[in-house]
């Protein structure tokens, strides 16, 4: 009943979020869930104002898609954008839907 998949969580500045969501869709993600977030990292505090809005995006995907998303992030987003991403193992009911 349950399938082993990957949960990729990405925290990114909102300026690039629309583009990022389109990109992960192209790489094979069938959906995502997003919440607004504040945060702090190597580039200082981000508290939801001019140039400081974070979006926390999570998507349940197959291991292959997960790897593709991470590669894209490392290649195109990390160099210039305030972004972090992590991956964990999850079990999903009726996982075929998300592959």
């Amino acid at each position: 009943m349950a399938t082993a998949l990957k949960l990729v969580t990405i925290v990114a500045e909102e300026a690039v979020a629309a583009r990022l969501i389109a990109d992960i869709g192209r790489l094979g993600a069938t959906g995502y869930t997003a919440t607004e977030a504040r945060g702090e990292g190597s580039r200082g505090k981000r508290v939801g104002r001019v140039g400081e809005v974070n979006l926390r995006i999570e998507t349940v995907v197959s291991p292959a898609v997960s790897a593709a998303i991470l590669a894209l992030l490392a290649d195109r987003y990390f160099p210039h954008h305030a972004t972090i991403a992590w991956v964990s193992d999850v079990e999903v009911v009726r996982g075929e839907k998300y592959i």
Partner: protein
Amino acid sequence: MEPAEILRNALLSPMVLSFALGIAAHFARSDLRFPDQVYSALSIYLLFAIGLKGGAALASSSFAQVAGAIAAGVALGIAIPVWSFAILTRFGRFDAANAAAIAAHYGSVSAVTFIAAIAYVQAVGHPAEGFMPAVLAAMEVPAIAVALLLARAGTGGAGGDWRAALPEVLAGKSIVLLVGGLCVGFLAGPAGMKAVAPFFVDPFQGVLCLFLLDMGMVAARRFADFRQVGRFLAVFALAMPVLHAVAGVWLGTAVGLGPGGAAVLGVLAASASYIAAPAAVRVALPEANPGLYLTASLAITFPFNLIVGLPLCMALARAFAGS
């Protein structure tokens, strides 16, 4: 009105005082936090409201006068990024991406500064022409387009993905609300406006105070990045607004604006964008450093204009008008 009183009006207006309170709250390490969604609701309200008022005023303005003012605004929006980019690359030794990013900010305009200017010139007895919001809307985009083209040229075509960025700027929320508000106000006319004035006109300045309270905290947060900015850019962020103010007020007087309108055009030229430009630059020039362009425009030029720019432009406009 006496110069002293003009200055008093500028410094002790509830707007400037609210901005100062925001700065103070930041340094007192207050836990005062403006909710994110309320902040963006306030900015939607402010942009749509100035659009509406401008649109209703457009209906009763002569075409020639409006066209002249818009032409003056667009000319400034094209010229400012060109010379800013040259100065920044030549004398400031900035790379093309950062120079273009900063040039885009100083060529484009700040809606909040504009609003403060409208309220200010009215308070000192020289109300601006009602159609000025149309000038504001017309000045937002050209500078960004020019700056991205300069970046493209400067980086040999690599940087400045302007074809991707421009549609985003044009459909960006500040343009949609301003231009959309202008259309709604224009079509609804003064009669339609009367029904919504108790919401979009009367409480406007009060809402602006609350917004500036928050802006004060945002700007104060940027003060921490002052070291990154460097001496050259700090001087740039103070000197260029003065230059642009003179150019704007002079051009405004030349195309027939009254002292209030000319002063506001000066303030628009002097102001640096921190809503439309950052959004476009983040997408088209991601390698440019926000610690430079945002800090300069938000933490230096914005308060400078609020406190010095407003009375300066008014004084210039009265001098040029010979009054």
